[in-house]
């Protein structure tokens, strides 16, 4: 390359696409790093609570002297921290990065988004401390205090939503990519269902129905929606080819929106709510086959012929496995909703395994993959250590595989034992013990994986990798645009 050539400046007309990306990434940097930083703190907190709770199930006399250490409170903090702390804040980070990229403009109201994230964190601290102190709203997935903790989340989340909406309104892209639909709809859905779920006037079985209207939709219309939005972006982006069928994306989104929201009562199959409601939810669960297949075809067929990419891209490794887990957990869920299967699996460890396939193998994996892609583009360095990424990947993959297999197997045994009235209840407890112990071991493996990831994240944001003067991924390649360099090296 001739030394007299000057590099094409970034932002010139020659590379408008690079300029757009750069502007988007620079604008979202602060809020996204805040969201991700908060998320990984909650990941560690939630992991510790999960580990202790898991051990307590097979060591029931361990750490029982204080109320705040009892299983029933630790488990609740684990769930709330993982859902509203780790998963939700990682998703907030991904949303704030991805929307500006998708609509080709800078993030607006980034300061408002940052404030929102702080408020959300405050709410979580108050809510979790409250649970440990015994303040529990009594509704699964909604335990945090509805007046002292929840409003912080609603306001904070609303601020993030406003920032995204204003950014969307200022868009400079002609079309709204499918990921925009998933992400924006999620921010509309979540406050609505959260408010409904927390509404204090519901009593009796109505309270039960509303509870599961909320909890299932927190999974489907919040966690799943943003995670699918991310998968629909990163898979084609890394591969450099569009998704297999955009028509299917459309079908997938709207059928998910319509059917998923009706699924909630499948958590109450056989329960004392009107039969027609349960039937509706079972039907809706079966109809989920349409959006699940549409998404599966899109995401998996797009990969066909390019599975070699998994060796080169940690992002794809995590996101593709996450997408496969989405298909798997959805198919499992549809089966579980059917009465004949449900009479075996309901109330057992199968449900716990299933929920972790969803929230961990799907959502968490997609979040890991997304963060591996986004961080370098924000801090303008590559990840310091390929080895740490490998360790992270294999530890969490092994951990979740062990977790799911162990609890699924013992869950079925537990269910079959409970189904036979001649078998004493004691037996149903005893058959779960090996699985509970295996799950504790799996939890330790996952913990190791999380420690590796958080350590690596720390190294990354502290700048322990070589900094670059030119901006990685936004770098213009001058030789390709210099006429004199014709015939020069690629």
């Amino acid at each position, binding site marked *: 390359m001739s030394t007299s050539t000057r590099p094409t400046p970034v932002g010139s007309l020659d*590379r408008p*696409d690079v300029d757009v*990306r750069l502007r988007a990434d620079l604008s979202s940097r602060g809020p996204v790093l805040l969201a991700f930083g908060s998320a990984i703190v909650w990941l560690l907190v939630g992991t510790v609570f999960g580990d202790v709770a898991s051990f307590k199930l097979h060591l029931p006399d361990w750490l029982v002297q204080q109320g705040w250490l009892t299983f029933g409170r630790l488990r609740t903090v684990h769930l709330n921290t993982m859902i509203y702390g780790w998963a939700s804040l990682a998703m907030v980070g991904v949303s704030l990065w991805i929307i500006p*990229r*998708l609509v080709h403009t800078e993030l607006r109201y980034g300061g408002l988004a940052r404030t929102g994230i702080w408020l959300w964190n405050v709410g979580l601290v108050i809510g979790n401390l409250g649970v440990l102190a015994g303040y529990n709203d009594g509704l699964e997935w909604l335990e945090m205090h509805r007046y002292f903790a929840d409003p912080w989340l609603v306001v904070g989340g609303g601020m993030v939503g406003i920032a995204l909406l204003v950014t969307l309104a200022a868009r400079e*892209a*002609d*079309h*709204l*990519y*499918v*990921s925009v639909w998933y992400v924006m709809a999620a921010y509309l859905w979540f406050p609505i269902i959260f408010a409904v779920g927390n509404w204090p006037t519901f009593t009796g079985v109505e309270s039960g129905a509303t509870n599961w209207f909320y909890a299932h939709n927190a999974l489907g219309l919040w966690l799943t929606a943003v995670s699918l939005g991310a998968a629909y*972006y990163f898979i*084609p*982006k*890394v*591969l*450099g*080819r*569009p998704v297999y069928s*955009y*028509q299917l*994306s*459309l*079908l997938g989104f*709207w059928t998910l929106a*319509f*059917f998923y929201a*009706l699924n909630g009562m499948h958590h109450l199959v056989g329960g004392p709510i009107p039969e*027609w409601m349960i*039937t*509706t939810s*079972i*039907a*809706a669960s*079966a*109809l989920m086959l349409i959006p699940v297949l549409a998404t599966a075809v899109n995401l998996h067929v797009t990969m066909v*012929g*390019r599975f*070699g990419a998994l060796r*080169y*891209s*940690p*992002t794809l490794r995590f996101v593709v496995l996450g997408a496969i887990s989405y298909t798997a957990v959805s198919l499992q869920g549809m089966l579980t909703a059917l*009465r004949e299967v449900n009479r075996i699996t309901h109330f057992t460890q199968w449900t716990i395994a299933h929920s972790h396939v969803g929230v961990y193998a799907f959502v968490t994996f997609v979040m890991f993959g997304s963060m*591996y*892609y986004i961080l*370098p583009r924000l801090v303008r360095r*590559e*990840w*310091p*250590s*390929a080895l*740490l*990424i490998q360790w992270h990947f294999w530890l969490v993959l092994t951990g979740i595989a062990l977790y799911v297999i162990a609890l699924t197997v013992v869950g079925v045994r537990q269910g079959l034992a409970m189904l036979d009235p001649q078998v004493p209840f004691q037996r149903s407890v005893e058959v779960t013990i090996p699985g509970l112990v295996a799950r504790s071991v799996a939890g330790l493996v996952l913990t190791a994986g999380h420690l590796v990831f958080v350590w690596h994240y720390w190294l990354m944001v502290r700048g322990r*990798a070589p900094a670059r003067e030119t901006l*990685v991924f936004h*770098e213009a390649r001058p030789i*390709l645009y210099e006429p004199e360099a014709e015939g020069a090296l*690629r």
Partner: protein
Amino acid sequence: MFPSSLAVVLTGLLMGGVALAAFYWAWRRGCFRDLEAQSRIILDDRDYRLHRPWESPEQRLDRELHYGTLEPPGPGEWGGAA
């Protein structure tokens, strides 16, 4: 279990019918024009022209023919370490 299954199927058909009707309406309103362009909006010039080490020579040639000279990826381009 027959009556229960029937109820599920009928409910499902009803729900599906509503969904299909909404879809048809949107189609007639022109929501689905030019979907191909929409799916490509996340891919810019640089994405198309990156040299991807996992692609076969045929795939790479195809890319080059469609989009021009390939660019080398940056370190850690695919979400990993250099």
